[in-house]
């Protein structure tokens, strides 16, 4: 059935996938950061995830059509001290050998006034998934978009810190995940 119709379909899908690709923003991981802040005996301790990837597709004019997916390399968590890093990669914490990635996949984005948006989705850490909603502030500068937000989670819900670390009087249950994602529109 070598008809113009087939060729038209082929052309259409090519164009569609191209335009879809164009809508995807290119995330600049060198300028983006994902941090998790825990509290040890009430002392805030910052650690950054050195490796992660993000796929974003967001137009402030059409937030509902947007989507976001973040994949974080749990072994790349850096507390600034290798002996601590080795510890958090271990079974009691991230168990990075078994669960190398933590992910966030958005399911809905709703405007929350001004440059604020509420992003709902599924957060998966150490094989445990939770539905979360995170407020995100979007800033646009030329062709560069930045997304900032903070999401408090309970580490116990994800089995982060098992065994003797379950004691939340030493390391608090609440951990704040902070992100600053910079993307360039193609």
């Amino acid at each position, binding site marked *: 059935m070598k008809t113009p119709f087939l060729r038209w379909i082929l052309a259409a899908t090519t164009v569609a996938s191209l335009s879809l690709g164009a809508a995807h923003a290119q995330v600049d991981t060198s300028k983006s950061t994902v941090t998790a802040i825990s509290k040890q005996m009430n002392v*805030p301790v910052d650690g950054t995830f050195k490796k992660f990837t993000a796929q974003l597709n967001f137009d402030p004019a059409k937030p509902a059509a947007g989507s976001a997916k973040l994949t974080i390399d749990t072994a790349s968590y850096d507390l600034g001290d290798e002996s*601590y890093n080795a510890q958090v990669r271990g079974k009691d914490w991230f168990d990075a050998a078994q669960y190398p990635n933590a992910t966030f996949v958005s399911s809905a984005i709703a405007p929350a006034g001004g440059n604020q948006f509420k992003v709902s989705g599924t957060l998966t850490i150490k094989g445990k998934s939770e539905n979360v909603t995170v407020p995100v502030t979007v800033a646009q500068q030329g062709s560069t978009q930045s997304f900032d937000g903070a999401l408090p989670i309970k580490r116990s819900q994800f089995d982060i810190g098992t065994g003797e670390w379950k004691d939340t009087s030493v390391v608090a249950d609440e951990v704040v995940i902070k992100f600053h994602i910079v993307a360039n529109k193609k």
Partner: protein
Amino acid sequence: MIVAGFYLGWIMTDIPGFTPTKLKYFSWHKWIGVTVFALAVIRLAWRLTHRAPEMPLGMAPLQKLAAEAAHVMLYALMLVIPISGYLYSSAAGIQVVYLGIVPLPTLIGPDTALKAMLRIVHIWLNYTLLALVTVHVLAALKHHFVDRDGLLARMIPFLK
């Protein structure tokens, strides 16, 4: 309190790896250090505004000089040791939250090279303190049992 801080510092660094007990000891150690520093400042302010009692008669000039130097060193270490520990914590990127309630400012940013240096400084200042305290105690005992000049009774009121 200094003894408790020293002892905690001694044992907490011997705990291998990273355990809740170790984190607790580190926090307590830092709280003690902050308290010692504050009390040392008050003590020093008192010492500077009040005359210390005279040294016992019959002490050789060289002995007096040694005693004076040792006391200056003790005061200096009471201040410098907590400061070095505090800066070490700052360089390690860990803030000190006094008693888990009062967040104290981090004076310097995280710095791996400085952290390693401050660690050694903090440890050796403590060894110096240990040596000085030993000498101080031995000297006080000598005054009491050998010289019998009543000096120790002056430091410990109910000894007489």
